[in-house]
């Protein structure tokens, strides 16, 4: 239903949102007030406008009262604008004759004085009513979706997402910056609460990725550039030099034996420096792909050129190329899944736990490697000073639930600490103490696992550890690490001497999360993890269409949750791909040629080169396909010849006027 003889008929709806809005804003008063504004035919309040009955109310009114403009005052447009536009369109009114007023996030949730809040709600409503009168009918542009997908990050989340998509027949490129996929999970010994071996469940998936016909696996590679928009992204990937030809190497590892270094001397990353490797190495036995690489920092040949190059001679497949340079690939994809994972908290930041000062203080990942059969001590629990611990203390919440480091709960530490307690006891028969604030065992079979540990008489002391010190005040403490903690169960401060301390470090965003965020044009939440479009309703979407997030890059997660999210992200990508096309917000700029003087001021302002200069006509010309709708050129055009759909000057002026108008509604002529 469009405007009959140009008459503007507005329907206004203010939502209670249960009590969320109605508790602070006098919604009835707002509805009454708006009813008196020009062009307003219907003005109602309703408990939940986003509910079916709420939308039905809209449809019915549009029909009964021949409404051709709709204003809903409820939550943020970022949440429900689409909902109400769709409802408006269903009732036969162009969806862009709709305007939303945010009186929840911007009013009822942030203000306490009902009078002030109600006043503000009225102002915002009046502004929207004026604005909507100036709206125009628009047709959104649709673009097609390239079915190929890019997955960034080869941890368990990235692996699962890639396999899901590949099995659905989509072409996937998986980019991992490390020399192998597997991520953190590959470092674990066993997984909670089932205690099944991490390698046993992960490595099959890793080789599945390697061998899948639909997956292109690029390891030791990084995304350096992302152009385009949903359905049509162009991505540049940098391949870091391995100094080994990936296609020729079969992973026989003979080059490693041949290396002029007879002994492994370099601290090895995979074992967190607890073990050593040579300059030419393979990260770990099941590394995928099974390809060796050379670390340019320590390889004499690469660094100085002065080396017998025994490795090169040894390789009869001539796979080793010491002159390899970085190379670039450009691919086009329609959707992108980010699964870039997390970083463990650096306990050096909490100096009072002595990490880095006392050799026998470890972080959890190091403990994982120590008890791992394929670890540096082949599973023997041997400390840095060669001793075998008789007592071990596990300190929970290191870098979690702490205002001075990270406020959030890392969600996995309680459970992996329980797991480590079990395994450490199993491996060494040591007495194991857990120092915890709360045991958070929310998950299938998690609480049961906790019970099991209690029966294994692992000690649990409830209290945040104050410090780990070697300050011995009694002879028994000499040569030990003393854990000072308030035992809040018995209300005394205790000093517990132990041989080994394991710090259950929390999860934090990758150190380059901000750069990655910029690269893919998405946002981060306060903690620095990638920001989801909606915490509940769109947990794997981002504010940039076609880019999804999965796993711990969005927030601390354990394996099951990461895998679940990876599946969800894959499903979201598939949804786009299979629908084949997507409607774009029609907020593009356009030019009224007769007003353009050809002054060229706008041409260089557009970062997307959407504006060009027509030499024959001496006029500018805007390519709406390239325009992303920022409106910078509109604000600049000195002739007022450029306009922006959805954000017309007239629309914004009427919003300003509406917000500041102090005339009584009777006299407010638009």
């Amino acid at each position, binding site marked *: 239903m469009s405007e009959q003889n140009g008459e503007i008929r507005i329907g206004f709806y203010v939502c209670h949102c249960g009590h969320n809005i109605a508790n602070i804003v006098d919604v009835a008063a707002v509805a009454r007030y708006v009813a008196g504004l020009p062009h307003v035919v219907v003005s109602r309040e309703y408990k939940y406008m986003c509910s079916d009955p709420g939308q039905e109310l809209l449809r019915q009114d549009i029909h009964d009262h021949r409404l051709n403009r709709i204003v809903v005052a409820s939550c943020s447009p970022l949440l429900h604008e689409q909902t109400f536009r769709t409802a408006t369109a269903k009732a036969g009114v162009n969806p862009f004759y709709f305007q939303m007023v945010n009186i929840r996030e911007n009013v009822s949730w942030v203000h306490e004085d009902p009078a002030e809040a109600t006043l503000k709600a009225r102002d915002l409503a009046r502004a929207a009513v004026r604005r909507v009168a100036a709206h125009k009918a628009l047709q959104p542009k649709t673009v097609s979706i390239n079915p190929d997908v890019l997955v960034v990050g080869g941890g368990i989340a990235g692996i699962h997402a890639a396999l899901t998509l590949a099995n659905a027949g989509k072409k996937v490129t998986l980019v991992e910056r490390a020399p192998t996929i597997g991520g953190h999970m590959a470092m674990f010994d066993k997984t909670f609460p089932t205690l099944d071996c991490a390698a046993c469940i992960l490595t099959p998936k890793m080789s599945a990725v390697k061998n899948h016909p639909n997956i292109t696996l690029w390891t030791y590679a990084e995304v350096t550039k992302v152009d385009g928009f949903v359905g049509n992204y162009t991505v540049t990937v940098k391949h870091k030099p391995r100094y080994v030809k990936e296609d020729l190497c079969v992973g026989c590892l003979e080059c490693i034996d041949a290396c002029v270094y007879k002994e492994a001397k370099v601290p090895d990353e995979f074992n967190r420096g607890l073990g050593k490797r040579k300059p030419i190495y393979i990260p770990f036995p099941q590394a995928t792909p099974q390809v060796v690489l050379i670390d340019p920092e320590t390889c004499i040949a690469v660094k100085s050129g002065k080396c017998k190059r025994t490795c090169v001679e040894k390789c009869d497949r001539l796979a080793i190329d010491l002159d390899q340079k970085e190379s670039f690939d450009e691919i086009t994809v329609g959707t992108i899944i980010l699964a870039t994972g997390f970083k463990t908290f650096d306990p050096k930041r909490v*100096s*009072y736990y*002595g990490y880095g*000062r006392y050799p026998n203080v470890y972080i959890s990942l190091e403990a994982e490697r120590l008890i791992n059969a394929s670890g540096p001590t082949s599973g023997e629990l041997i400390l840095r000073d060669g001793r075998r611990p008789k007592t071990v203390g596990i300190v929970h919440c290191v870098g979690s639930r702490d205002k001075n480091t990270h406020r959030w709960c890392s969600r996995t530490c309680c459970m992996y600490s329980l797991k480590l307690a079990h395994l450490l006891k199993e491996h060494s028969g040591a007495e194991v103490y857990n120092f915890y604030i709360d045991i958070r065992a929310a998950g299938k079979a998690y609480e049961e696992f906790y019970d099991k540990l209690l029966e294994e008489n692992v000690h649990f002391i409830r209290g945040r550890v104050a*410090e780990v*010190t*070697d*300050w011995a*005040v009694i002879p028994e403490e000499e040569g030990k690490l003393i854990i000072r903690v308030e035992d809040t169960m018995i209300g005394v401060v205790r000093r517990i001497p132990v041989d080994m301390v394991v710090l259950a470090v929390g999860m934090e965003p990758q150190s380059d999360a901000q750069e990655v965020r910029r690269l893919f044009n998405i946002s981060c939440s306060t903690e620095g993890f990638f920001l989801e479009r909606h915490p509940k309703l769109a947990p794997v979407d981002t504010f940039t269409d076609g880019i999804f997030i999965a796993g711990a890059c969005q927030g601390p997660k354990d394996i099951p949750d990461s895998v679940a999210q990876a599946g969800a992200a894959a499903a979201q990508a598939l949804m786009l791909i299979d629908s084949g096309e997507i409607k774009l917000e029609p907020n593009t700029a356009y030019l009224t040629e007769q007003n353009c003087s050809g002054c060229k001021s706008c041409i260089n302002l557009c970062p997307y080169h959407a504006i060009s200069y027509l030499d024959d006509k001496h006029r500018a010309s805007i390519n709406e396909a390239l325009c992303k709708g920022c409106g910078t050129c509109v604000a600049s055009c000195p002739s007022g010849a450029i306009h922006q759909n959805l954000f017309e000057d007239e629309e914004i002026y009427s919003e300003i006027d509406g917000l500041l108008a102090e005339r009584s509604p009777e006299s407010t002529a638009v």
Partner: protein
Amino acid sequence: MKYLYYPGCSLKSTGRPYDESLRAVFAALGIELTELDDWNCCGATAYASIDENQAFGLAARNLAIAEAAVTDGPPTIVAPCSACFLVLTKTQRYFEDYDHVRDGVTRELAAAGLTYRGHVKVRHPLDILIHDVGLPAIAKLVQHQMKGLHVASYYGCQVVRPFATFDDPLYPTSMDAIMRSLGAETVDWPLKTRCCGGSLSGTIKEAGLRLNQHLLVEALRKGSDLVVTCCPLCQFNLECFQKQINKNYDERISLPIMYFTQLMGLAFGIPEKELGIRRLFIDPLPVIGALKGGVPAHV
């Protein structure tokens, strides 16, 4: 480098060696210290618990006159005494963060015909030495390498807590780094920010002495030849109660406790008279002088 200097009451009395050695060392490093004209008590008393507004006002007066004193660039106050540093820093922080404090202080100062715009930076000598001067510059001035001297750096509780502006709040290392740049070896002792007994030594003596004893015993256990500190109260406590501790707890402690700036001065070859060494009760020179490459007796 030019800074305003806020000595506070301690450095004019019990802490004079700190004042003298700090001035000498900073001068040697080419740092110009101008004593803040007409400074007053920082308010590190019970004042704050009696009338917060006036307590902040008292401290803020120093900030206000400092702000007025400097025309080029933001004024920086160097406050060596831990208590002064803490109180002035706190006042600055609260002035920035809390409207009611800002308004209160503004009122209090107005009564004295003063205004404060909140531009003063309050800094500690350790901060200046580490971040403005830098360790290489310090090392360059060293004439007598403190080789083989085992030093325990003691920070006390106030310089880094609760406002850790320039170092780790629980395991600071700036003083240790400076000591190492003098050629000394620093002992890694866990009690470097633990309570020295503070004013307890004057009130609940037993408690004060116990805390005090812990520090001294652990410092010796870690093989320290002497303790350097940056706090007048800590220096006083640790040095002056050793006899009593030996008597009460049957210890044999005689451990020199000096200001870190004094050791720097000696290393720089500044005559000990200018460093107030003689004002110390336990003469550190024997243990230092005994060292190879240490300070010759004549200085």
